[in-house]
């Protein structure tokens, strides 16, 4: 077994609550629930997806090993946290055809996630933002063309081989503002937005782990039933994204007068990294509030920021930025929800 700092804490007063939940168990279970989504992406987009995943996981594990040896920290490779981080980094990489996404992209993302976002701040349980998302954002800004181009079509299905669904949304509105006709989109090699069914099944271009809402929903539900992940963050996050995209989505849409309450919430919920973010990223134990109220505020903030960035930002997707920004505000959110101390008349904790 791996030794953790908390093992040395002696708890004296009964009653004690016992749980079989241990860090390694949790990490491996979460990793296992991600596999269907990755396997599905591998089936739909071809084997390069699996090569990218293997590279990300290997880089994460090797970095973890190297850093713990260099810093003489307790060996934590076998607890699976680095494996899971590598897997989540891979989920954030674009699914492309054979050899299109250079392998240094997932490798550097994993190294950054483990070395800088996790170990520079003290290792497991000490990271202040989600490591996998930090890795993604780092390589996103380092190699923007690699991270946003080359979206694959599918050899297995008739998948649109152009822009991601959210790209289409943005391009459509932009082109309309430029006075172009809808017909010219076909000339430019772009098709109209995919159907909700395609989005749900993952038959659209996107990142490896985000394309199939169905597979992620399944994995997420298993995690909630096992009580590894709380239900309030995913629910609030997805619901608030749906609500705000319904209210404001119509303002940026084309072919109609801008009006409120005309957005397409289902399209926003099923596309992009929302499912992945809501179930696997925004629910990280370390970087989210511990109180129920705090989690609601946290998830609400994620939803608002996601919709804002998607509709008005220069980037097409906002989930990763939204979660990282809200991660940073967690200590402030916690202050709003300090529990009332038992036996005191005032609700203020000292």
């Amino acid at each position: 077994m791996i030794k953790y700092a908390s093992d040395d804490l002696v708890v004296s007063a009964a009653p004690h609550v016992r749980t079989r939940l241990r860090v390694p168990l949790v990490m491996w279970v979460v990793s296992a629930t991600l596999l269907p989504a990755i396997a599905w992406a591998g089936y739909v987009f071809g084997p390069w997806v699996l090569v990218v995943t293997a590279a990300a996981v290997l880089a994460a594990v090797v970095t973890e090993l190297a850093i713990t040896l260099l810093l003489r920290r307790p060996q934590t490779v076998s607890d699976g946290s680095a494996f899971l981080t590598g897997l989540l980094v891979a989920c954030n990489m674009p699914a492309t055809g054979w050899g299109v996404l250079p392998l240094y992209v997932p490798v550097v993302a994993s190294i950054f996630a483990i070395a800088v976002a996790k170990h520079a701040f003290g290792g497991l349980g000490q990271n202040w933002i989600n490591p996998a998302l930090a890795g993604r954002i780092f390589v996103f800004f380092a190699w923007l063309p690699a991270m946003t181009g080359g979206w694959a079509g599918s050899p297995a299905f008739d998948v649109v081989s152009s822009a991601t669904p959210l790209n289409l949304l943005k391009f459509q509105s932009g082109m309309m503002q430029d006075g172009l006709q809808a017909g010219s989109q076909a000339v430019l090699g772009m098709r109209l937005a995919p159907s909700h069914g395609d989005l749900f099944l993952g038959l659209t271009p996107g990142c490896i782990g985000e394309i199939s809402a169905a597979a992620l929903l399944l994995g997420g539900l298993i995690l909630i039933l096992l009580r590894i992940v709380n239900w309030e963050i995913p629910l609030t996050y997805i619901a608030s994204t749906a609500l705000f995209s319904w209210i404001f989505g119509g303002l940026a849409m084309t072919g109609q007068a801008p009006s409120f309450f005309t957005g397409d919430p289902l399209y926003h919920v099923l596309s992009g990294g929302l499912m992945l973010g809501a179930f696997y990223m925004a629910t990280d134990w370390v970087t989210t509030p511990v109180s129920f109220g705090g989690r609601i505020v946290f998830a609400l903030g994620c939803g608002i920021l996601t919709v804002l960035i998607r509709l008005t930002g220069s980037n097409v997707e906002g989930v990763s930025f939204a979660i990282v920004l809200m991660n940073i505000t967690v200590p402030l959110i916690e202050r709003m929800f300090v529990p009332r101390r038992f036996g005191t008349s005032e609700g203020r904790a000292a």
Partner: protein
Amino acid sequence: MSAARPKAGRVFADGLLRNNPVFVQVLGICSTLAVTNVFENTLVMCIGLVFTTGLSNFSLSLLRSMIPGRIRMIVETLVIASWVIVFDIIIKATLPEISKALGAYVGLIITNCIVMGRAEAFALANKPLISMADGIANGLGYSWVLLAVAFVRELLGSGSILGARVLGEWWTNWNIMVMAPGGFFVLAILIWIVRGRMERNKEGAR
């Protein structure tokens, strides 16, 4: 401090490593982030800082018995600003290209915390020559950190050193290294490594 009569060797060891203005005091971070994306500009910036801290420490130390305590900050700023203007004029005349690239950052040496910090902490309490040595040592301490950061950033961000391409065609530039966040990351990682080693040496000595 003046009673102890600091030795030149110790002054240099402090400025370069033990009390390095960037690593240990974490001063002068603004310019560290702003000018380190290209090695050449960084070099000029560093020369400017060594020049300014050295000479302003020297002249302030000469004036130290004549400066009334209440207005000493204003006097320090005036002296520092004069030296920065002298440096600005020199590089405008000799290196107009780099002067343009650095833009306002040369003038901003005036506000660099290291210059004022050394004037306050050292020059006002010590003799002129040793003060000048302290200024130069701290300028050099700042310089080597900046040059290390600039080296990494230009190498990764543009694949070149001093404008000459050193990495082949296979290299894909890390755009983030040219942007300000790259400066944060490289500097922070450097501080992490160097301070980690310093702490460990301290523990080993005990």
